[in-house]
Structure formats: C-alpha cells, structure tokens
C-alpha cells in the first residue's frame, strides 16, 4: 500500500515537473488530429511509421543538441554538419565500402565538434558566435566539394542500414532512434558523465569546485552534438539514396524548438532526452496532420503556429493547475 502511495506521489510529482510538459502537448496534438482526421489514414500504423522515418535524422540531431545545451552551449553548425558528413559519406561510398564511408562521415562530425569546442573554450567566446562562423565555413565546404551537385548512392546495403531497411518488421530508422536515444538516456540519467554535464551547465563554478573538468566535459558535449549531426547526415543519405549540400539546412530551428519544447533548458543545467525525441515526433505529427487535412501551404504554416501556441499554453496550464 505504501509502495503504491509512493509511486502515485512520484507520478503526481512528475506530472507537475517541467519535463512533463511535452507529454501534455504531445497528447493534445495527437488527440486533436485523431479527431479532426478520423476519416483519413492519420491513425494508421503505416502513417506513424512514415512520421518516425521522416523525423529520424531530426531526432538524432535533437539528441545530440541536448548534450550541447545541457552544458550551456548552443551548436548552430549541426545543420551544415549534416550536409558535409552526408556528402563525405556518399563520396567515399563511390570508392570504398560502407565501413570507411561511415567512418569518414563520423570523422567529419568529430573534427567539427573538436574545432567548435577548442575554439569556444580556448578563445572563451560565445558558442553562438563560434558555431555561427563554423556553420558558414562548413556550408561553403559542402558546396565546394561537389560543385553543388547531388551525390547519388547506389549501394543497397548502405541504404538498407541507414534508410529503407527493416529489422523484424521494424523500420531501421526507428531502431537508430531507439539505440541512440537509449544510449543518450543512459548517459544522462544513469552515468556520472551525465550528472557532470548537467552540473557544468547548471553552475560551472560549483562544478569546477567539485573537481569536474569543466572544459573537457564541454568539449565532449560539443563533439557528441556534431557526431550526432554526422550520423543524422548518414541517415538522410540512406533515406534519400544520395546527399546534397542543402541537407539539414532547414532543420536547425525545428530541432532547437523540438528540444526546448521537450524540456531541455536553452541555458544549460536541464536536459531531457525523451522530451527531445517526443518534441521532434510532435513536429512530424503536426506536419503530417496538416498535409492530410488538405490545407493550402499558407494555411498549413498558420495552423502549425497556432497549434504549437495552443499546445504550449495547455501544457503550461496543466502544470500550473496540477
């Protein structure tokens, strides 16, 4: 009985936390479209699988960005990293096998994260300014190396692994989301590294006093962010059977919004991996629902904004009333 009371109290406490916000919004939006689009194929498994597949690269980016935000940094270069890593992977795939292509793409992410981190920490300059600069550089390189051409991918094993494959009937992109999201969740919630990340983001002075290597932790967080973006690039390349310099270009704001709605603080110290994943799925559901509703493009844009504002307002109200 006591144990039951305890778990009920824990549940109630959770419902009042900032992290619960995304669940209210997600539930509201899902119900809204389920009612409005009851006569379409919205509430079908294949439609939800479409949404999960479409948002998989965004989800991975959001998970990575959560690490950067947890330590109080913003990484604006993730969109351009997606493009460059996808292009490098696709180009390598024309001459080598999958392992080297994947390694090359991930090395791009590692290098960008390292450069971002070193510049931010050594120069003690805002991450916003540094990553804004590197974003431009990376975009320029991505445009330059392929002369604005698309790079097709015909390697079917690669497109299976990173795009269209299914394992036991489950889309491989969902599997990637679960694996990366699961690893990130364990790191943040169960390992000392996760606590260090949040401590550094919450109060770097106190973290330093506790003996946490603040600079190193921030560097790791930025590398995680860039490498997640590089993996997202591979997922895009696999899904689209090719890479292009515009990949990821439009994703930055969506990812930041998804992570923020998911309960991660934009100023460090608070991070929520499940929220980041639900946040990107929420964006996918809104986009999908509005298209199926038959709205014109302009109406879709207005409705997207209105739904987000209403959902956020309801979420806030639920928490306050709770």
């Amino acid at each position, binding site marked *: 009985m006591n144990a039951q009371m305890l778990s009920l109290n824990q549940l109630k406490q959770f419902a009042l936390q900032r992290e619960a916000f995304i669940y209210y919004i997600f539930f509201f939006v899902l119900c809204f479209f389920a009612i409005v689009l009851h006569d379409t194929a919205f509430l079908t498994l294949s439609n939800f699988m479409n949404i999960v597949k479409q948002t998989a690269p965004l989800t991975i980016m959001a998970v990575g960005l959560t690490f950067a935000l947890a330590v109080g940094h913003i990484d604006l270069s993730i969109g351009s990293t997606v493009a460059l890593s996808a292009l490098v992977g696709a180009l390598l795939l024309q001459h080598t096998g999958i392992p080297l292509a994947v390694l090359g793409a991930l090395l791009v992410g590692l290098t960008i994260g390292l450069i971002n981190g070193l510049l931010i920490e050594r120069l003690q300059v805002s991450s916003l300014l540094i990553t804004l600069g590197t974003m431009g550089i990376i975009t320029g390189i991505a445009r330059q190396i392929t002369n*604005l051409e*698309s790079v*097709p991918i015909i390697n079917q094993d690669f497109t299976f692994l990173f795009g*269209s494959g299914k394992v036991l009937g489950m889309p491989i992109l969902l599997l990637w989301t679960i694996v990366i999201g699961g690893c990130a969740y364990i790191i943040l919630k169960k390992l000392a590294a996760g606590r260090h990340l949040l401590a550094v983001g919450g109060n770097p002075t106190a973290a330093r006093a506790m003996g946490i290597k603040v600079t190193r932790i921030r560097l790791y967080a930025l590398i995680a962010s860039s490498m997640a973006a590089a993996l997202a690039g591979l997922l895009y390349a696999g899904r689209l059977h090719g890479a*292009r310099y515009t990949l990821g270009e439009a994703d930055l704001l969506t990812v930041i919004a998804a992570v923020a709605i998911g309960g991660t603080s934009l100023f460090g110290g608070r991070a929520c991996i499940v929220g980041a994943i639900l946040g990107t799925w929420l964006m996918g559901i809104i*986009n999908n629902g509005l298209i*199926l509703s038959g709205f*014109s*493009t302009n109406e879709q844009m207005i409705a997207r904004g209105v739904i987000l504002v209403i959902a956020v307002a309801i979420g806030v109200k639920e928490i306050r009333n709770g």
Partner: protein
Amino acid sequence: MTLSRNLHGCNNYNAISKSITFAFALLITSFTSPLLAVDFNSITNADKSENIKLSQQQIDSLKTKKLTAALVWHGSSAWVSAVNQGAKETFSRFGIDVVAVTDAQFDPAKQVADLENISVLNPDIILSLSVDSTSTKNSYRSAIDSGAKLVLLSNPIEGFIHHQDYVGIVTDDMFGMGKAAAQLTMDALQQSGKLGIIYHDAKYFITNNRDQAFRQALKSAPNIDVVIEKGFVKESETSNIAAAMVLQNPEIEAIYVSWDSAAEGVIEALRSLDRPDIKVITHDLGVNNLLDMATNRNLYGTVADRPYDIGATMAKLGAAAILGQRAAQVTIVPFDKVTRTNITSAWQEAFKKPLPKLLTQALQQ
C-alpha cells in the same frame, strides 16, 4: 478524343511539334545543365499547351470516377500559387478532388517526407516539381507503383521513362524566354551599349538555361559589350553585387538579372546610387518591379511565363492520362515579352486575375 496532336503514336507530328522538339534539342546540346539528369536529346515528341484539350464527354467521364489529386510543390511564391490555382481550378472543373498541397521549401528531404505523407491518401494524380531528382526518385517511384499518374513541372527525374513512369513534363520555353530577354536588352540599348549580367550561380535547371540562352542570343548583337558578369546564390545578395558592379563600371547602361525578386535588389541599389539611366531586364512578374516599370524608372522589360496555364495544363495532362491518353513527353507553355505598354494584358495572361489596383493607378499617372 481532343487531346489531339500530342498523342504519342497517334497522328503524325505536326510542324509545331517538330520545331519544339528541335528547339529543345538545340537548347540542350548548346547548354547542357549539370542538373539535367535526363538526356533531352532523347525527346521523341513535344507539344504546345494550347493543344491540350478535353472534350465534354471526357470531362463527364472523369466526374463519375471520384478521382483525387495531390500537388507536391518545390516551394512557395506568387508564381507557385498561380500554378497551384490553375491546377486546382482545372481539377475542380473535372470533378477531381485535390486532397493535399505540399511545399518542400526547396528541401529534398522535406519533399520526400511530403510524398510519404500523401501516400496514405492514395491520390490518383500527382502534379509535382522535383527539388532534386536523385534524392526524391524513390519516393516518386513508390507513388507511381501505387497507381498514381505523375505529371512533372520542368525538372525531369533521372532514370524515369516517359509513359511508363510519368505522363509528361510541362515546362516554360526556357530557350525562347532567354532569347526574348536578350531581345528586350537590345531594344533597351538600341543595339549598342555596355551591359552587366547578374546570373544565378547555382545549379538550377530553369534559371541556368534561361541565363545561358540569354547569353547565346546576345551574340547576335555585336555592339552590345558585356563588361562584367557576377553570380549570386541568394536573392539578398543582388543589391550589393549591383552596387559594386556599377561603382566599378559606371559606364554600364543596362543590367540583366536572372529573375524578378532578385531584380528587386538591383533596382534598390540603382536607386541608392541615383542611376535612373541604367535599364534592368529580367524574367517573371512582380508587383514591386512592375511599379518601377510603370513609373518609367529602371525596369525596362521582363519576360513572363504563364504559371496559371502551366498548372492548368498539368491538371489536364493528369486527367487525360487517367482516361488512357498518352501525352507528349514535353508540353511547352508560352511566354510574353513585357514592357510598360503591355503590363496589364501580360499580368492577366500570367495569373488570370486583374492587375493590382496600385499598378493600375501607377499606369494611369
């Protein structure tokens, strides 16, 4: 059967069809765009949009079928809206329900997602402009395999076979438009003078070919001297480029710029530099620049296509394909050379709606 002269295998190709095919072959052999994935030399037939007609009997037949269509566009603009309007109104006349309209915002990944999203609606007809042939091909293939008839706007898709994978491509006469822009430039400079070119420096099928056709046609005016060429990627860059161009080459008498909204920056720069003498020539119609033209300032002329007709033609081809008709591989929609004297009629041709009041007033002054 009134989808008359563009039927593959039916009727003999008429002179128009042959000349259009020849023009395309000439265009492509002269100016092969790296974005162009399909070998246009392989085009077997082409037709003009005015030849695409459906009989009342065919329309009545369509109305009984309860068909649906999805419009999967590449981006949003007044131009796309007019294409959209033309398609929707035409489908409406045929009793075809438009169940989804999407905007890829020039993002191939978004367009793939859009195609996946509409797949659950199983549309009978899809009208679309592919942002990137390589990336989007598989999603189009899935839609085709589900039985949708695909009508393409301008951009071909690599590896797709006419009739088997798509109904046809509806496009502007890019070669003709570039040539007409060159003619307007010659008129503006009275066959002799200094010209600057601000071209689209990105791989984009339509703009690249129009720009190239412009350069090619300009060779017939030996007294027009192209003193400088500069490329732009984003429209926001054209103001700075034009300002620098004129400061470095004050003798410039005219500037060609790839399209209307990019020309806005050029005209803004010329105003800042107080150079009303420099004439601007571009493509497409936009209210801001037409106001400039109406008030006899910088914009001398523009070459405008007919987006409403493009949408209407695409819809007709899709509907005809449902009835088993085989369309030409390429259907070309005409364009208009626009100067101050014909702004009103060109606007009405392009958008099938009256000229905005502001422009009417400016023209009356």
